[in-house]
């Protein structure tokens, strides 16, 4: 079976409708002045010309998800003894996510190294991950906040995608990279795409060419550790940070969570929800001690994690995907690129250690 297909633009909605018969399909849609991922509705317009405001993170890693339903019961023989019965709630069904960008989907590969580790796999994440396919849109026109090429990616990076859709005149060139991707390309709406391969490659080349030259970040892991104890550096870097969570929740590769039990009477639910390391209480311990008490500490951790600690543990792969959302959506336009470069170029002043 050929793995390169062509889809006419006018057939896009029909194809997604076909896929929606067996899968939940998610696509970018405008809500207010933002573009979010929502269940695909044939009657509603999709918004795919520009990268969406939020990544499709919640399709595999929901903003909150139920883990266990539990019920308390008292032992009738011994009323002081309370028993608890828990019922796992595993996600069901399959999903197809259309319209994420290479940077968005790359984020899930960052999750995989942590959530699908050799010894332990997160069963909730794994179930969704195994049952979700990604049809990624290659980027035609990177924005000036895009820096995917700094972190080992590109506007046509296929990492994490099951199918890559490259927009060309009149339609899309679709290429499958996984078995799941192959299975998605069986529709009769698709024709063989071989004669458009060169056109698709042109799109990729032009997009990559429009990016300004990437600096060398290989020194970043060590340089960020070098300034670890330099709180002046981090206080300056974090001075304008508001310590909210916009950057974290809009980041394709931020994966921290919090677990909460909410009980009403004799039953309750344990669920996990997104947590963000920029918030003041993220590292608050039961004793009352907080190892990251200031926003300088927390910003140091977030940037250090993306550009230093993760690459050190995971084969020099930077967990930041270069999508630039943290820059665009930050209320004070804090630029993570600036800080990483400052750390790399940091020379202690004469007389300092």
């Amino acid at each position: 079976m050929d793995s390169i297909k062509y889809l006419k633009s006018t057939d896009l909605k029909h194809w997604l409708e076909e896929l929606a018969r067996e899968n939940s399909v998610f696509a970018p849609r405008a809500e207010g002045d933002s573009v979010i991922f929502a269940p695909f509705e044939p009657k509603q317009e999709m918004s795919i010309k520009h990268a969406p405001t939020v990544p499709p993170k919640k399709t595999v890693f929901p903003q909150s998800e139920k883990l266990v339903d539990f019920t308390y019961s008292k032992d009738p023989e011994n009323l002081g003894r309370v028993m608890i019965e828990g019922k796992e709630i595993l996600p069901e069904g399959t999903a197809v996510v259309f319209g994420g960008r290479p940077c968005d989907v790359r984020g899930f590969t960052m999750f995989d190294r942590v959530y699908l580790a050799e010894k332990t796999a997160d069963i909730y994440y794994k179930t969704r991950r195994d049952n979700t396919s990604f049809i990624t849109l290659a980027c035609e026109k990177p924005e000036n906040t895009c820096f995917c090429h700094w972190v080992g990616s590109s506007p046509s990076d296929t990492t994490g995608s099951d199918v890559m859709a490259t927009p060309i005149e009149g339609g899309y060139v679709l290429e499958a990279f996984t078995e799941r991707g192959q299975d998605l390309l069986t529709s009769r709406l698709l024709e063989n795409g071989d004669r458009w391969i060169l056109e698709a490659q042109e799109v990729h080349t032009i997009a990559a060419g429009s990016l300004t030259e990437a600096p060398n970040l290989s020194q970043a892991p060590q340089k960020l550790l070098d300034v670890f104890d330099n709180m002046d550096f981090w206080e300056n870097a974090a001075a304008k940070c508001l310590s909210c969570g916009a950057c974290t929740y809009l980041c394709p590769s931020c994966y921290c969570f919090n677990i909460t039990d909410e009980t009403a009477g004799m039953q309750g639910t344990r669920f996990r929800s997104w947590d963000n390391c920029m918030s003041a209480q993220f590292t608050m311990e039961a004793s009352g001690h907080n190892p990251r008490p200031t926003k300088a500490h927390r910003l140091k951790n977030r940037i250090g994690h993306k550009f230093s600690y993760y690459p050190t543990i995971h084969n020099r792969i930077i967990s930041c995907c270069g999508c630039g959302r943290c820059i665009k959506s930050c209320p004070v336009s804090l630029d993570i690129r600036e800080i990483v470069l400052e750390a790399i170029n940091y020379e202690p002043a004469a007389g300092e250690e």
Partner: protein
Amino acid sequence: MKFQEELKNSIRKVLPELDMVIGWGKSFDPLHATPHFIRRQEDIDELVISPLSVHNLATYLPGLRGKKVGIVVKGCDSRSVIELLQENLIDRKNVTIFGFPCTGVVDQTKIKKAMGHTGNIESCDMSDTAIVIKSKDKTRSLPLSEMLADKCHSCRYPDAIISDHFVGDRIADPAPAAADYQALAAFEKLSVSERFGYWLKELDRCTRCYACRNACPLCVCRDHCAAESRDPHWLSQENNVRDKLMFQVIHAYHLAGRCTECGECQRACPVDIPVLLFKQKMNKEIRDIFHYEAGVDPEATPPLLSFKMKEENITEKVW
């Protein structure tokens, strides 16, 4: 703007006595500014005052209490500083206020709508009447008045209400072009049940990032915010539109009589939810009942911190 040099000189003189001066500087692209912290003399040259200087810098003041901080303020920002003084959250002697005559700041959402897309801006030039934006594939000259934030059209305090150093000429007759609360009036044309549906739809995409809360100068509870408290348990951490709506009500109510409508909450929202409407409703009612505006008089007591034995505008319900 013309007085930019005067302002830089003003700061230059005073900086040696201060730990820092907070203003605005250039950002990642020509269409954005960013808060700029001036600590050394060479930092002063990067100061930029323009219609892009949207950020309310007063939000940094409570966290810097104890330090000697200078701050550049627009008229609306100075109201936040005054409110912080009213509530004793900052010390007047440790704050040096630099004011200038503000002719308005832009709303990035309006610019994005007019340009279609603002991801590839190459240059941005401003005159008194227009903003000329050049992106990779088009150049547009947009009338500045149409790109200004809504709050600027009904602004009654363009000059800093209190300041230690004021550069440029004060705006002689600040007659606002538009009436107050127009967005609210438009919203209130919806029927009561339509409003319920409206908020559910808008708040569905909220990510609970709390950018709205953290951008607010008056939200100083930090670690003790009711939204994240487990005891008392006001909100579930579950991704539920009811909790998202409840948070907005908590926020608006905790700001009752304190909010100066700087609009940062709405501007900070990464998914453009019109959260300012809640606070505008709150403020309008407080103005109607108590004839009170927050952040105008440093000596005034906010209405919810006091009471009268006989209230002029509150009548008892007749059964």
